[in-house]
């Protein structure tokens, strides 16, 4: 049937994760790979991230988002990897078929030997924040404002308040300022920022934009277009403190309150999910609970740097290639090590290990911690201890587990905790 396309490795999403996974799969020897991208160009969200700060780890130099994406796109093209643009995947099935639609082909099926999920993430919308007040125009997620300004050439507003100090919010504070807007404040509910320290320095401090920690927006005013917001200080339980209200006149409220992995396809396919990350539960190969379906990038867990997205995508792409080339052989059950965390460490990726090989484990912490050590234990034995002067929820951390320790753990647990020095 002409409406079924067969491929070895199908990759859902042509952003930084999808492209890096495709390149890795090709390098691992797979000849037919197909990237399905819903936008009209490869690159994903990097296309609108025209600021710098990308690529220091991967390329040893600081690139803007479009430059970073262009390098991968050039590789994809050089290698002759197939991709379909304006193609939206609408269903994912356990038998490793996906249903997609595009203007050129209509609704069609892709049948793959292995699938890599690389759909990225989206921003948390206002509704989820439950701010009271009216619902006028002028309230946007920071990424939406970024799209208006950087890709459409329109200014969504002139007098701006930003809620949430995630990196996109910080970047947009500077961007709006450079384009002539006045950013009155960035409010952060938590006592610390979720963004990178360098972005607070170069996006806020450089332009004297106040960062109000332990503050939130408690009311929205204005009937048609936003006219102002009420900002309140919050107590240690993040509840607004009566009497601390301050009215800020503004026509725009940008929200930078977190990112959510876009896992509708993953969930509907019945893949096991991690409630903390909002992504799939994966092993060291980034294989999900469904054999032959892998996940990487922000769809798996929200990353702080695109460089780590690429790194993770290489693992997933290579493993997907291996799986496809071996004709879909399952991993053995000889090794099945669960990584358990203590709450201060909120989650790890991978969650489970099926191979005794040196493995980098990525994680995030739940609060700002100073001078602590990260400890990994196998039974009572400390297999790793690493001191860190500062840990923050906004930044991803890593530890490296050795092949030997994993082999020894076999089907047991490795416990990861944050302890006093």
């Amino acid at each position, binding site marked *: 049937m002409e409406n079924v396309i067969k491929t070895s490795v199908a990759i859902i999403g042509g952003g930084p994760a999808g492209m890096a996974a495709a390149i890795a799969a090709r390098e691992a020897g797979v000849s037919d790979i197909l990237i399905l991208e819903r936008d009209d160009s490869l690159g994903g969200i990097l296309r609108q991230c*025209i600021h710098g700060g990308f690529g220091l780890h991967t390329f040893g130099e600081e690139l803007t988002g*479009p430059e970073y994406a262009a390098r991968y796109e050039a590789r994809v093209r050089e290698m002759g990897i197939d991709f379909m643009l304006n193609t939206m995947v609408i269903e994912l099935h356990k038998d490793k078929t996906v249903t997609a639609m595009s203007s050129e082909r209509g609704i069609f099926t892709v049948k793959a030997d292995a699938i890599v999920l690389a759909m990225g993430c989206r921003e948390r919308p206002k509704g989820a924040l439950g701010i009271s007040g009216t619902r006028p125009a002028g309230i946007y997620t920071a990424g939406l404002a970024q799209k208006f300004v950087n890709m459409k050439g329109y200014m969504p507003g002139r007098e701006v308040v930003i809620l949430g100090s995630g990196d996109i919010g910080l970047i947009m504070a500077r961007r709006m300022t450079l*384009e002539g807007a006045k950013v009155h404040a960035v409010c952060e509910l938590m006592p610390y920022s979720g963004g990178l320290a360098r972005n607070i320095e170069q996006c806020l401090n*450089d332009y004297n934009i106040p960062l109000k920690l332990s503050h939130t927006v408690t009311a929205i005013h204005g009937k048609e277009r936003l006219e102002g917001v009420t900002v309140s200080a919050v107590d240690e339980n993040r509840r607004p403190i009566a009497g601390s209200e301050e009215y800020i006149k503004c026509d725009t409220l940008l929200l930078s309150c977190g990112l959510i992995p876009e896992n509708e396809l993953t969930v509907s396919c019945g893949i096991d999910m991690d409630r903390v990350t909002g992504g799939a539960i994966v092993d060291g190969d980034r294989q999900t609970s469904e054999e032959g379906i892998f996940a990487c990038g922000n769809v798996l867990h929200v990353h702080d740097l695109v460089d780590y997205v690429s790194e993770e995508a290489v693992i997933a792409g290579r493993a997907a290639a291996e799986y496809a080339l071996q004709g879909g052989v399952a991993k053995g059950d000889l090794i099945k090590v669960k990584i358990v965390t203590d709450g201060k460490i909120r989650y790890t990726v991978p969650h489970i290990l099926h191979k005794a090989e040196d493995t980098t484990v990525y994680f995030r912490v739940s609060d700002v911690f100073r001078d602590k050590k990260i400890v990994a234990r196998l039974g009572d034995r400390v297999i790793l201890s690493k001191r860190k002067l500062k840990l923050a929820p906004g930044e991803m951390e890593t530890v490296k587990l050795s092949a030997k320790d994993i082999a020894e753990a076999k089907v047991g647990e490795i416990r990861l905790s944050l302890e006093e020095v």
Partner: protein
Amino acid sequence: MERKLTCIICPRGCDMTLYLDDGKLISVDGNACPRGKTYAEDECTHPKRSVTSTVRTESGRLQPVKTSAAIPKELVFACMDEINSVVAPDGLSIGDAVISDVLGTGVDVVVTGKAI
């Protein structure tokens, strides 16, 4: 005199302490690499920043650009004015200069991506 400074050179964002004498940098603490010290020196004498933005192209599209190197911080808004008054010819690709030697800084404003 001491001054606290967050390094912006890489995402690590080191918290540095600068020890100054009469405005002159004596030593730096907290930097994980030598680039931090260079940054601290620049911040004390002549702070610099890179600028990223978009330019309009002849056919009315938007094309992302950046300064090919950091420019003096006080020229950032003037540089934005230059960027916002230029019309780039169509068909430029990554690395092509849209403005050469912007504001006499010796730095070019160059294309960073496809026009959209």
